[in-house]
């Protein structure tokens, strides 16, 4: 299939790459840019593990064509820490024990980043509703919600 040029920014770095038009953003991030911190599980928009931020808004990278990211700013988990300093959400997740197997964690942390950018002081109920589409099989969400609150307060 004929490839097309995709110009976009990922974690602040501008890219100009050739992609096949049917490729998802997830495939391009993982396979072409080797950003494997973005995970893939159900690949059909049910679990949230592949969540990235597109111009600051959470998107399912498995269900978004790469070409739809043209001229957009993508944030993946690799872009959360700045200058070697972990983001307060990462610190919250680490300190509160919110990470077990770690497979949902990148998507979950980016989801919470989007929440805190919209609503810096969410209640437990608001956090719970916001992460409804991000499945976790290890933690029971208890410490994830604690971590989000800790990050909000940090």
């Amino acid at each position, binding site marked *: 299939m004929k490839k097309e040029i995709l110009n976009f920014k990922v974690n602040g770095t501008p890219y100009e790459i050739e992609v096949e038009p049917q490729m998802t953003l997830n495939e391009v991030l993982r396979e072409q840019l080797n950003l494997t*911190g973005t995970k893939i599980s159900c690949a059909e928009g049910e679990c949230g593990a592949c969540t990235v931020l597109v111009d600051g808004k959470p998107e399912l990278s498995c269900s978004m064509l790469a070409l739809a990211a043209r001229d957009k700013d993508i944030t993946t988990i*690799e872009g959360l820490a700045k200058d070697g300093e972990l983001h307060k959400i990462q610190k919250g997740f680490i300190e509160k024990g919110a*990470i077990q*197997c770690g*497979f*949902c964690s990148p998507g979950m942390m980016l989801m919470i980043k989007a929440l805190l950018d919209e609503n810096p002081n969410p209640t437990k109920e608001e956090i719970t509703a916001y992460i409804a589409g991000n499945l*976790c099989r*290890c933690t*029971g969400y208890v410490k994830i919600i604690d971590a989000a609150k800790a990050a909000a307060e940090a």
Partner: protein
Amino acid sequence: MNKEFTAVGKRITQKDVVLKATGEAIFVPDVKLQGQLWGKILHSKYAHAKFTIDKTRALALPGVVCVITYEDTPKIPYCRSFRDMPMTASGQLQHSDEFILADKARFVGDPIAAVAAVDEKTAEAAIELLEADVKYEVLPFVIDPRDALKPGAPVIHDYSPNNNPVNSTPPPWLAIGDLEKGFAESDLVVEDNFYCSRQIQSHLETQSCCATVDSNNKITVYSPNQLAHPFRRELGKMFNHPVGKINVVTPYVGGSFGCRLSCHTEPICVMLALKTRKPVKLVNSKEEDFTTIDARTPHYLHAKLGLKKDGTLHAMELNVTTWGGGYVSRAMLAGGIMLIWGLGHYRCPNMNGSCKLAYTNTPLGGAMRGFGNPEVMWGIDQLMDRACVELGLDPVEMTLKNTKHAGETCNTGLPIESTYIDDCINEGAKAIGWKEKRGKNKGGTKTLKRGVGMSTMTHCSGAWPLLLEHSGAIIKFNEDGSANLIINPGSPGTHIYGSLSQVAAEVLGISVDDIYVVAGETEKTLFDLGSHASRSMYVTGHAVRIAAEEARKELLAYAAKMLAETPDDLDIKDGQVFVKANPGKKISVAKVSATAIYGARGDGHTISGKGCFVPHHNSPPTAAYFAEVEVDTETGVTKVLNFVSAVDCGKAINPMTVEGQCEGGVQQGLGYGLTEDYVFNPATGATATGNFTTYKIPGAPDMPLETKIIIIDKPDPKGPFGAKGVGEPGLVGIAPAIMNAIHDAVGVRVTDLPIKPEAILKALKEKASK
């Protein structure tokens, strides 16, 4: 000696977690090998069929490197959950009844062919061609195990013409007394039929594998398994390949919960690598996971209890029909272990039971967290609750009358080393507000009824003496005073590396920050059975303790030479070796270690220690679970308002980890109880619930409004620093506690898992019409 702990019992974050927070942690699907091919599997469309496959068109597709079917495999029968886990009592091994690719399809999803191609899309295109080029001869099939055991049912394996490869009976310490007499002497007999459902582990990282074979014929396999060493041995057997030339690499694992006790994609991936002599990567889709992996083995359970008027249990009978699947795998043990958990939990003088395992034309029954315990307690603790209601007793008080205490015979036949189950019950009841809420619809309305219910359990710390038990560990000091802890228990997200580092640091007298774990490769580690049966802390923990004690001894001996003291007069704290009688006289661990390595004194060596451990004891973790629910009598929907798990896991090495295990257990138990419903299409045998939309695991809004974990935290006499297992106990009694709470709220119960709103509504209607 009542020394204050410096590492044990602390809420310490393990180093791995940082890598998981940044996206640096590599899971098998993230592995990229130079020049790797992509593998894909063709699964059978039919539940039971003979077939022939014409490979011509697939092979001709540009980019396809190889196509394999049964004819290309070594034809050595294997057991996907590793035959060499002998039951130590009987010496019996698990059955080896399948091939790397099927000779005959035995369930919808059975792997019948595979391809390797230059990229994933080409591999998928080849699979589509192959799919069109299979000629099936469809055979009669059977889905339900009760039908499979009837005369005249379709025969799934020629060697087992009645589809009944194994029957189990309880071990002698649980087949006791006289059942008939016991029931006759009882004041109340309660019994019912229960369905214990097929629960999918639902870890997010799908089954995956990367395999490569080098020019020395060494096979390297990247696999997210839980039991790397037994898996390597099974690979050696199935390919007739020397195990010394196999390295199983287990990077970070995206959840296990029992599923990774079986190999799923690995044998096929290795087969493709051997054929192509190139690295091959094979990653399941989530739908492939849902339709092909070994899930929690389903059972039909008939449970019968006899009780005295005062609530004392007097007789118990459990009869189980186990839903095996197209091959037996772990299901071979599933029914027998149910009898052990179920009959072993409460004190009861008259007990017996039986279990029949059936082959069926369905995906396999395997192991999931708790392995038989959540299943059997679903039945037993509902009957206990029913008996309380009928006898007019309080479940908390009645349960306390039947719990076993230290010294009594445990489920494993060994004496109970320690149990604080009564503390679990009392503390849990207090936390849920049992006295204020039971039977009072407190806070409820006319249509939103509230109730509380409870359940309890006894589990194990490792599988001794029922299955093979053995773990090893190595400690070696670096010249900066840090130490490498070399272990291989698997790392499915349980923070076991961190907890074991705390054990090592405690013994060595250095900071946990100075312990660096080396793990995840069979060729670099001592044998460790792996993560299952809530064993890693209890068994590998002891191996680490022994290794650390040996290293400590070497360190003190060397330090004694340097300080001109005797080793017995020395101790270590905060990375300093000091003279006990004169703490000012000291030397750093770093200096001792560096001098031993680089001191050029002519006695150079690396200070190290090795520990191998087989527990000849098994300290049972116990727990009590309390649910408060609200049932909408107009819709039948249950909301869990509060959940309390009180767990006796001995000394909590890391309380944060213990809480995390138990909180996660509530999610899985709540799903088992209320939402997770695996359905086969009876007309085809195909899975009708092959994704997260149709198979619903609880999301954050589905969780209890409040979840409280109570850790009893009393040390066990035999566990390392007093620790017992805790991985599985998290979910065992969740579903029966919820069901008993529903009954308290609305006076009806259902016996099939999961508890569906429509079943509650139907039961309410039936109750109203009476």
